[in-house]
């Protein structure tokens, strides 16, 4: 079942036409990555889904419902999408616990996240609960950003470059955490990465994006392994 569908999206930043006719889909429970060089429109694609940079043309469907015109908070509350930007955007001057509480949502379902469950999953956050979020290390901030995203009980998690700016060892921890989350929860994962090891590790299907948001091809992890040349050409590594 399609949980997310983008059909012929066009998006602009001011006058510049950043995405010119992008289509892609994600099935429920799938983990999909978008791979491509800097500036091809990966982040803009995510922002379009979130309603932060609404597309000028084309349609976006979440769970079969047309969400193209939805406000960001509707995408989060009604579409059950959590967005974790590359900058992580941990609020400074706000404690770790308060960072988590902002996203807290009361719902009647039992399988919802709350502070205790997050602290259970990320013991380091429990340790630092009273600390200013801005004082955390990069890896801890990434954990906090993921934990904060989970607090809204998402069924789709959108991660923009979770490995950015992290030491290799920390990247491993972050990847393991995300993997485990996808296994335990019925989360659908959409990932943007430049580090193709991370992308291969986390996702099972990959969109290779070219300049202006054009999708060159859609490959499984296995196809990528067999055709590493193609992958490397797209990433320019």
């Amino acid at each position, binding site marked *: 079942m399609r949980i997310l569908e983008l059909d012929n999206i066009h998006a602009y930043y001011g006058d510049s036409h950043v995405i010119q006719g992008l289509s892609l889909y994600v099935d429920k429970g799938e983990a999909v990555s978008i791979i491509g060089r800097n500036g091809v429109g990966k982040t803009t694609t995510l922002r379009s889904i*979130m309603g*932060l940079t609404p597309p000028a043309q084309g349609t976006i469907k979440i769970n079969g419902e047309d969400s193209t015109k939805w*406000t*960001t*908070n509707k995408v*989060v*509350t009604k579409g059950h999408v959590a*967005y974790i*930007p590359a900058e992580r*955007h941990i*609020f*400074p*001057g*706000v404690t770790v616990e*308060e*960072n988590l*509480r*902002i*996203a*807290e*949502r009361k719902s009647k379902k039992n399988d919802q996240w709350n502070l205790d469950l997050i602290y259970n999953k990320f013991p380091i956050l429990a340790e630092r609960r009273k600390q200013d979020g801005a004082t955390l290390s990069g890896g801890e901030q990434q954990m906090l950003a993921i934990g*904060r*995203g989970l*607090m*809204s009980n998402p069924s789709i998690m959108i991660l923009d470059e979770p490995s950015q700016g992290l030491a290799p060892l920390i990247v491993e921890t972050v990847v393991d955490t995300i993997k485990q989350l996808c296994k335990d929860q019925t989360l659908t994962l959409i990932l943007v990465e430049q580090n193709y090891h991370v992308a291969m590790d986390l996702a099972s299907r990959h969109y290779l994006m070219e300049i202006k948001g054009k999708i060159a091809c859609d490959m499984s992890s296995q196809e990528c392994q067999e055709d590493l040349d193609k992958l490397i050409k797209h990433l320019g590594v």
Partner: protein
Amino acid sequence: MDGHIFIVQTVLNCLVLGGLFFLIAIGLNIIYGISRVINIAHGSLYALGAYFGYTLVATGLNFMFALILAPLMVAIVGIVIERVILLPTRDRPMVYTLILTYGLMVFMDGLLKYIWGDQILFIHPPDFLSESLTIAGVPYPFYRFFILMATVASMASLYMLIEKTKVGIIMRAASTIPEMVYSLGIDMKLVHVGVFAFGCALAGLGGIIAGPLFTVYPMMGGEMLISCFVVLVVGGLGSIKGVTLAALLIGTVQTLGFVFITDYAMVIVYVMMALILLFMPKGILGEGKFE
């Protein structure tokens, strides 16, 4: 005059004026911090609170009820202002809201004169507030003491709201990275209108509280607006602690100025503001967020 009496009364007067500045300036400050709007009409909303208070008390309503009702009425006016002129210009540069709220100020001041006239009006506080009480062996007007208590109570509840509640966390977060706040599913439209209405209610409260003290007249809004801008500049726009301190500081300087060199009191205030602008452009605590 007896030195002891003079000192106690002057200290209390400084706090009363500082507290009043706090009530009005903090609303202006929070609205800027979260919505990046400098509401030039804020002083007119303060005046509106005083005029609403006058009418409510003049029609026979208990002053204490008026103290609650008038700020609520100003908040409702605030909601209308936010929906009609601020919401449509949210994504535009700040100069739009500056010009629009300036126009609103001119319009509102005209409207106040049209409805209530040019003359000075008096709000009569209830009898028990008109007496005086003894503080540290010194007689002091009960009403002024009441203002002090009311502002301390408002200050304490405001700090509780900001530090302890989820609304407060959202307010603090939104003043840093607003985009992430709505990426977490918070309806920022609601936050903007809520914060604006809240700031207006505080201005309205300040207005009705100030009424019995300074009387009610058409120019009162403009005078208060200027004092509030001085407080914001000194405290650092966007900094809650800075503005709280600055309100008390300006209240003190202005009160002492009037006691010692009546004619030049405001000169001292402006010279102080100029010096702070020159040497501490981010306010006394260096926390200002002006962009």
